[in-house]
């Protein structure tokens, strides 16, 4: 289950998120689009294990019930505690906000991008029961980027490895296998050796075949 907490005004008017209110999506993703009361947050914290990922809006605010005697400071600390609990339980967390810098490793994302890719992200989750965060960040064509990421590592490896050792290097093999799925990595490396290609030329070939 995916949990999104976004209490900003006129969410439904500003973003194309009507699908989140459909039954099918509701079963996979819970959207809290109002300022949550402290009791809501406590309840969510108790049931955190049912969520695989929590996406709070950067400026999420918790409000106090009328009968709640807690100080305002305690209420504002509650958000921090809630976030800490999510992290302690090792539940994936992505923070989003308007004009927020999109950073895959820091798990922050611009709100426009978040909502633009959200449907594909949830669709993939519903079909495969897998949270593919790259869809959220890079859209449906994330595989292109994934391939690039792998080849980036392969190129680093090529640069730091002696050419004679390529045939024994698993990372290079993996990269070649994904770039040339119908060829044997060993054959490719032997072909390079036969042609006496230098590293620069090999890197160029990888680039050209991306």
């Amino acid at each position, binding site marked *: 289950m995916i949990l999104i907490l976004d209490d*900003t005004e006129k969410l439904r008017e500003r973003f194309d998120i009507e699908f989140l209110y459909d039954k099918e999506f509701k079963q996979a993703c819970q959207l809290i689009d109002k300022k949550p009361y402290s009791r809501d947050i406590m309840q969510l914290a108790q049931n955190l294990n049912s969520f695989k990922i929590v996406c709070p809006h950067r400026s999420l605010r918790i409000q106090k019930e009328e009968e709640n005697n807690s100080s305002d400071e305690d209420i504002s600390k509650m958000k921090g505690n809630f976030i800490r609990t999510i992290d302690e339980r090792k539940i994936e967390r992505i923070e989003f906000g308007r004009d927020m810098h999109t950073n895959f490793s820091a798990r922050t994302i611009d709100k426009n991008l978040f909502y633009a890719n959200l449907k594909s992200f949830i669709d993939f989750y519903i079909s495969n029961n897998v949270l593919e965060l790259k869809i959220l960040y*890079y859209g449906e064509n994330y595989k292109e980027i994934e391939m690039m990421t792998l080849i980036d590592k392969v190129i680093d490896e090529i640069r730091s490895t002696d050419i004679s050792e390529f045939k024994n290097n698993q990372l290079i093999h993996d990269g070649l296998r994904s770039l040339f799925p119908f060829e044997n990595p060993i054959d490719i490396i032997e072909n390079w050796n036969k042609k006496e290609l230098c590293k620069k030329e090999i890197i160029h070939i990888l680039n050209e075949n991306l």
Partner: protein
Amino acid sequence: MEKIYIISDYTVKMKGLIRNLNIPEANIISREDFTDEQKCHDWTTKVLNNKDIERIIIPLSLPTDAPVINTDGLLIALHIRLNYELDITKRLIPIIFLSNFLVSKIIEKNSFDADNNPQNLLFTKGIYFSSFNTDDIKATIEKAKPLKEEDYKKNVLNKLNIIRKETSGGHDIANAWGCFKLSQVVGVSDKIFKLDSISKHLKQLYAKYLICSNESFKTERRIDLIPLKCAGKKILFIDDKSDEGWAELMKNIFKGAGDNFVFVDSAKYKTTDEPKLFKDFEGFLKECRSHIGKEWDLIIIDLRLNPEKEDIDNELISPSEFSGYKLIDEFLKENEGYQIIVSTASNKIWNINTALEREAASYYVKESPQFNYSISETNKHYQNFKTDLQKCFERSYLRDIYKIWKSAAEVNKNQDNSFIKESNSMLDIAWNLIKQGQLDFGYLTLFQIIELFANQKYDYRDNSIELEGVKSYMIEINADNEIWKLTFNRDNRNGDYFSSGDEQKSKGVRANSLYKVSCLLKYVYEKNDASLKEFGELNDFRHKIAHEGAKGQANSENIKKVIEIIKIIRQ
């Protein structure tokens, strides 16, 4: 490698590279994670201002061991190129990107921010590209030359394609821009730029691009040599962006007014989260309305108070539907004499015209980032604004005149319907003349109402007036003389007048308007001698205007006194 700097995330890869390149420790700039554009701007300002950098090396994908490859290095470079807070030479340092990929593949495989289009930077002058190979980098450093200033516009800015983010709202940026530009000529730009509400917008790449393109960021400090004279004036400022710089700026413009400068604090009615939207627009309007009827010498009202519905790009709303227009209408319905300046971030003349047709005194167009106005143009604009403000202050007496005019127009208990009808139309004519600045003609028209009434009430055939249904003679005619019921007093300085007490006069003197009105004031409305003397002064003014021509002799005080008399006689 003395002045070669490199942005590093201290991965094994980067450490090895830096070692091979012999880049000194002091030249390593530690990469930071940015949560937004504002932070990236501030970081580049800090880094580049504190170091003497000749060339900078930036890995295209940051961090270099990111689980997914990215192009974040481009964003840092864009923030350097468009950092108006940096000296131009620092903005133009050669930037060397490091990547394992060909530029063509980077463009082909990555998806880029459709508004900022950071990929365009790769094709601008002063940008160099190298693999992570040490020899390649060294060779690239050798050929990397600083850009010339003349290249900045032609070969950098003109090749970028940065457009406004759809969700940012034109209103927000226009507001921040307009506020900042005006603050520059008011001499408080330092203060205004420090406000988070302003800088957060001006540090966005779109605003930065405009500022650099227009060369409109100047750190020079200007002083307003002719500050606005507004001591003792009561000023009301209504703007949904009062919390975002404008109230602070206006407070400085109206410094002389001190606590008499009042603004409706929009922050109270907005969310505390970004974007700060109205959570209680009706509450905001209610507070604005609570100021209707108060004694303002000047009111400034923004045309679009509810930007979510009335954003600058929304051309479907008729100008008279804008919340600011409606508020102007409400203020003017209460008092047509209010001096209202309509402010707007739109330069659409039809929007302004609608407000002017509704009799706003003038307008102020907030400068838009879309136009390249020089500081001297901005200053001219500001001086015009000050002239308009001064004119409003000079005409603020209209508020008091209108107030008493309205109370006189509302009184209609006088049983003489034809008089009420005729005086109604004369009151309207008088007000129209007065608000057009024709005070003398307005005065004459008002005075005519009194004369009209006196002529109807005073029976010239037998010099009588009716008191409680009984004829009362104002001139008793004897065999040799006449006894007038009031005594004439000559006053060459302030105007002749009548006072209590009988006066014997030779026969045949005809009662004039002064006598007729004085009799009515004394015997019908039981006014004292001071009132009669005052009427003498008003009568004298009337003669001066009628005989010497309209030379601006009437003023708000004597107009108000005449209206007070009209009010009495309409009762």
